[in-house]
Each structure stands twice: as C-alpha cells, then as structure tokens.
C-alpha cells in the first residue's frame, strides 16, 4: 500500500475545484485513458491578468486526483508569469511529499498547467504538443521531457526517470537511451550505471564473447521485441557470425529484416564488437510454433 500524506488523502477524498470552467481563458489537456491518467485543467483570468478561477477533471489514481486538486488551489491568485514558475517539486511539496513511484503525477500537473498557459498565449488555438523526439514509445515521452525531469529533480537513475515521467516503464526497450540522456546531463556525478549495461570490452575470450552476446540480447534487445509480442533466441556463434531466430510475432513480421540489421546487429555491435554480423536461422524459423497468431 502506498504511504500517502494526510493532506494528499484530504485532497483525494474532498477534491477542490472539480469541473470545467465555461468559456475559459486557458485549457490544458494531458495524458490519456490508455496511459492510466489524464488531466484537463481550465482557468480564468481577471482584468489584471491574475488567475481568478481554476478547475480540473482527472482520470487516475488517488495521487493524480490529489495533485490536480492542489494545483488548482496553488495557482489561484497567481499571474501567468508566476504560474509558469510552478514546478512539479512545488506541487509534491505542497502535498507534504509523494511516494517516489507517484512523482509522475506531479509532473502531469505541471504539464497541464504549461499546456493551459500555452493555450491562452496562443489565443485558445494551441493544443498541447509533444516537443522533441519520442524516446519512450509506450508512454509517448520525448527526450525534451526526460531531460527536463532529470534537470529539475536532479535525477541520476533510469528508475527515477521512470517514476517521474513514466519513460522506460513499459517494455523497457528505451532504458539504454534514457541512461545516455542521464549521462549527458549529469556527467560526472554518476558513479555507477544503474541498468547493468554490458561494458564494451577489449579482448574477449570466446566464452566471454558468447556470454556478452547473450547478455546483450537479454537486456538490450529482447525487451523491445517482447513489447510487440515477439521474441528472439540465440542459436549459435561462429567467429563473428551470430545466428539468431525470431519467435512469436517477429517471426512473421515484414519488418523482421529491418529489425535484424537496425536493432539486433546495431546493439550487438554497440555492446560487444564492431565486427559482429547477424544472420537469421532459417531452419528454426520454419518450425510450426513460430507461425502463430
């Protein structure tokens, strides 16, 4: 069970400012049903440009509802410039803290506020758009958003990034990329790599090489394939030739050749050796259990 503060429980059981403002000055909509949480924030400004009223509607867990409720309380009376400075940390602190795995709820609150302000500034035309390149395809999180939560909350581990913006929490296929973003931003302060990324080795014995290939397949390649109902198996290693077989959905996928070169071979070259090349084991591809669904 989550340890929620009394303040959070109060805002969950007695949410403030529920609803939608008619004819609002700004509307911010983030999240989706599929992602498990969504928030629609509306606000109204007075003649001096201060937020006089704010309302929310939220689909989500207790902490998503409570963070939305406090957000509306926090921003009432603020100018838009002041509101822009509200961070996810402020929202979490206002509630007396959030469980680590629920920090993404506070980030969703901040995103909705930004989206609503953006919407107001564009004269009510602009809808919230994703900025940057999507890194986490499961939850649609971009590199810009990941960079931002890392900077604002001083994160150093992939797991923390997942807690704050969900990225990496689905199939896990993008965890390697998240790690690179953390390294880029935090550079020196990281002492240990959190996800056990196999280190590119110098001279390997045959056994070490095969183990490293298996480890790379297990940690870097399989999670992404699994997310799409597929799988991969290491069949053999002969010198620099790596023979693998696709399973499940991958076995019939028309993009299999692309996946082979662009994902499997690329990852193996990155983590094991530049000299490696992959081939598909045709014989096992014809086994009946690879042709289902």
């Amino acid at each position, binding site marked *: 069970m989550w340890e929620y503060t009394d303040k959070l*429980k109060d805002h*969950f*059981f007695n*949410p403030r400012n*529920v*609803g939608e403002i008619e004819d609002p000055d700004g509307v911010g*909509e983030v999240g989706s*049903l*599929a992602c*498990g*949480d*969504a*928030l*629609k924030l509306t606000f109204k400004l007075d003649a001096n440009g201060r937020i006089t009223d704010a309302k929310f*509607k*939220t*689909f*989500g*867990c*207790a902490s*998503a*509802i409570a963070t939305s409720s406090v957000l509306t309380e926090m921003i009432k009376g603020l100018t838009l410039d002041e509101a822009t400075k509200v961070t996810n940390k402020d929202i979490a602190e206002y509630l007396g803290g959030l469980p680590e*795995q*629920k920090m993404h709820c506070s980030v969703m609150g901040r995103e909705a506020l930004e989206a609503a302000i953006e919407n107001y500034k564009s004269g009510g035309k602009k809808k919230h758009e994703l900025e940057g390149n999507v890194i986490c395809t*499961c*939850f649609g999180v971009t590199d810009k958003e990941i960079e931002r939560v890392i900077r604002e909350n001083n994160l150093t581990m992939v797991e923390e990034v*997942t807690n704050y913006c*969900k990225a990496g*929490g*689905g199939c896990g296929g993008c965890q390697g990329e998240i790690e690179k973003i953390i390294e880029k931003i935090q550079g020196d302060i990281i002492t240990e790599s959190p996800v056990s990324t196999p280190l590119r080795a110098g001279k390997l014995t045959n056994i070490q090489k095969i183990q490293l290939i*298996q480890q790379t397949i*297990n940690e870097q390649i*399989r999670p992404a394939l699994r997310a799409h109902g597929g*799988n991969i*198996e*290491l069949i053999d290693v002969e010198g620099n030739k790596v023979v693998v077989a696709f*399973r499940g959905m991958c076995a019939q996928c028309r993009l299999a050749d692309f996946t082979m070169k662009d994902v499997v071979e690329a990852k193996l070259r990155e983590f094991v050796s530049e000299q490696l090349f992959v081939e598909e084991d045709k014989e096992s591809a014809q086994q*009946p*259990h690879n042709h*289902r*669904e």
Partner: protein
Amino acid sequence: MRTIYFDNNATTKVAEQVFEEMEPLFCELYGNPSSMHTFGGQMGRRIRQAREQVAGLLGCEPSEIIFTSGGTESDNAAIKGTLAALPHKRKIITTRVEHPAVLTVCRELENHGYTVVELPVGKQGRLDLAELEEQIDDDTALVTIMYANNETGVVFPIEKIADLVADRGVIFHTDAVQAIGKIPLDLSKSNIDLLSLSGHKLHAPKGVGVLYVRKGTRISPFMFGGHQEAGRRAGTENVPGIVGLGKACELAAKNIEQENNKVKKLRDKLEKAILENCPDSRLNGDKENRLPNTTNISFEYIEGEAILLMLDKYGICASSGSACTSGSLEPSHVLRAMGIPFTAAHGSIRFSLSRYNTEEEVDYTIEKMPGIVNQLRELSPFVAT
C-alpha cells in the same frame, strides 16, 4: 471500523481451529523433528499427520507431498527441478496469464538459453488446447499451466491438459495455489505430475506450502542442505506452519462443498448487483469456468487505485489490476493477455470471497459501490456531465 475482507485471493484469515493446533508449537513443543530426543522427535509424528491431511485433500499418497515455504518456492522447485533432471531438453510451454512465480521464472530461464512458449488466451481467458498440442515437441521438457487464475478466477481444463501432455510423454506442472480448497481435485485419477499449493490461500499461515511430486517423477532438489523431506527439500521443517497447513487441508476437505455453494451464492449476488447498478461496468473472464469465490469487474473511465481507496474508507478490502496499484506502469498482464482494452484494465477491481464472508457484508458493498463509481466519474474528464 469493521473490516470487510474481499481479498481472499491475496491471502486469507488463519482459521481459528488451525491457529489452535499451532499455538502450542511455539513456546511449549518447539523441538526439532530431526533430533534424537523424544522432545524433538515427537514432532515427526505431527508432520506425518499433516502430510496425511494434505494427501487426504489432494487424493494422493503422503509420500508424494513435499513441504516448502510457499507457492513461489514450489513453483521454482518444480520448474527448475524438472529442467535440471532433463538436461537434454530445452523447451518450456506455459501461458501468458501465469502468476509471476511461474512467468518470471520461465522468462529468466529464457536468458539462459531455454525456449519458452507462452500460450495466448482468448477474450474470456480461455486456452486453445489445439495450440498447446501443436507446441509440444521432442525438445519440450515441461508444460506448466495454472489451475485457476488469481486475477479473474478463470479455471483451465487442467485434467484434459494433463492427459494431453501425458500422452506426449512430457512432464506437467500446475500452479494450483488458487484452486486448492475452492474446487475439488483428485490426484489419484489425474495425470498431473507436479502441483504447487500455498498455505495462506486456504486459511493456513503464510510461509508454508506444498509441492506434490507424483511417484516416479524425477526432479532435482532445489534447496541443498540437510536430509529433510527425504532429501528432496533441505531445511529444518516449519513445524507450526506444516501442522497448520495440515489442519487447514482437513478443514478444506470438509468445507469444499460449502465454499462451492455459500461462497458462490454470495459472489453471484455481489457481481450481479454491481453490474446492474453501475453503468459502464463489465465482467472480465470466463463466466462458466470460474472459481466460486472470484469476480473481476471493470469500471470504464475511472481508475482502480482510486476505487480501492474509496472502498478502503468503508473498510472494504479488494484489489485491482490497475497499473497504479502495483508500482508498475502498465495494467495487469492477465487482462492485457485477454485483450481487455487498457481503459477497462485500468479500472478493474477484483473481489475474492471466502467462507468467512457474510451476506450482510455483500449487501453493504452493493450499497456503497454505485456511489463510489459516480463520485469518481464526476472527476473524470472522459465522462460528460
């Protein structure tokens, strides 16, 4: 505030009669059954009795029972022990809806070069047995398929599956943690080779379980150390737990009909009323082949954790397949495997009853549920107001 406990697939109350049997075994009769003195040695008799009580419920020989620390250990021991005994075979067949104690073990074995086939299920959570048959080949070491699903209560046709697997000469294991004590089972007439059960799901304490190993089935030991359990499971016996589990099995054997009737009646009443009184709610799972105590209902446009907290305020304990309750970000793998849309999976609630529940508790929950659903829907941006 009183507690209304509808989370019996998570764990159950220790039956008072079970506790009474266990109580003297902590401060008075605390001996080690392996000791040579009477004080310890007499505990061996208590364990023997428990073994007979378990065998009585399962319809097997006492010698086929190995006591373990619980369902997870039994599953690990069955899967890894079978593979270790069959080093030349590299394939395991299981399903996508297994408990993590099976699924995670299989996926880990995949990392060690095993081929794992996870059979899909249909919309109602049913397996396609023809597909299972097609998958079994000469390389298959083990088929492991759960008896009943912990989230939906869907019961697989395990006896049919066991026959089919036995015909092909492959070892069959079933995780029967949710089924034992809820539906009758007779291993003397069955082709099941290995079966896991857990004490705390049938009114025995936590920390004790059983692995049934059919006579003649080869499995390598999983725990090494002393010679306990005929060398098949090392470690000083959890005497109070084992004695408690024995008693619980004896009670289950007596109560199974009551479970089937009384519990099912209560479950059906609860389910019917909720589905009728809460718009946009749907039942998850096969209605025909189901445990008598479990119902899994999805409420559209609202999220499971929020529902659970509202129920908690009234002292009602249930659970959810929503992402937010588990700490993971994706909803239940079971509901996803059944093709339940994410939107419904996020708002799924499981009520699991036991013989200790009353009609009054069911009525109270029926009364509270529509209000909770409405209150959360008023907050939801996906519901027009």
